[in-house]
């Protein structure tokens, strides 16, 4: 189950194009665009993969839904944005462990 394919050709291509073009632009853009672009790419991957995921469907769907409002409020609530990223990392650790059947 861990090697289930969850993205289409088009979805992969779109995210690759997004990441490469974003990388080419970021050196001349505000520093907070970096995390924003990476989270946007993560959001697109989560949204695309969630429906086909066998192991992490709910996790991916939830993360995709969470990222959008957090991105939009990152300037008005930088502390909340920072906290969201930290909590997302903790959630990813818990999800990674759960997928392997490990308690953390």
């Amino acid at each position, binding site marked *: 189950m861990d090697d289930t394919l969850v993205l289409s050709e088009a979805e992969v*291509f779109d995210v690759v*194009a997004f990441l490469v*073009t974003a990388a*080419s632009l970021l050196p001349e853009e505000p520093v907070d665009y970096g995390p924003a672009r990476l989270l*946007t790419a993560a959001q697109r991957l989560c949204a695309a993969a969630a429906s086909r995921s066998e192991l992490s469907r709910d996790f991916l769907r939830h993360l995709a839904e969470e990222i*959008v*409002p957090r991105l*939009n409020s990152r*300037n008005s609530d930088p502390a909340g944005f920072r906290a969201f990223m930290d909590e997302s990392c903790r959630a990813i650790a818990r999800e990674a462990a759960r997928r392997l059947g490990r308690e953390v």
Partner: protein
Amino acid sequence: MAGDRDVLTAIRQRRAVRHFEDAPVTRDQMLDVIRAARWAPAAGNKRVQRYVAVLDPTTIRLIRTVTPGMAGHPKGLIVVCLDWERVAALGYGGSRSIFYVDIGTATENMLLAAQAIGLGAGPVTSFSKEAVSVLLRLPSRLTPELMVILGHPVPRRTEHQSRPRTPTRLGDLVIWEHFSSDRANDHGY
């Protein structure tokens, strides 16, 4: 000349729209918006900008692919280009920043015009110029500098992209008469 408070109201009400409904944008609407750009103030009235109007859904999709700054799915695009052959022919040397000022004035006119005809619009600069040039088959003399995305705006209460207004006070922006470091310019507005 009589004042026109409607202009101020339009300026205050304008928002950068990022998410759009499925309804199409028409060619006439695109021309209305570009016509407004034509009336924008421009250095020396030289008009070195060219506007590539895009309504084809496939082209818009391709451009979106190379535009990290485009979150939603616009139904029309206006790509503002600089014509460097025209710049050279006019004999401009040194700083060319004035042409980017002109792009700004034209863009604001387009955003306000879009609002006036019931469309939503937003400026986008986070795109790969190289990739967009390929997709639009631009000759080397034209460089894409900014695009205005257009469509029928998703109602604000449901537009998940709407952001809180920037809490910048007018007093943070204005310096009266000359700069002073003792906050003498802080008039509390």
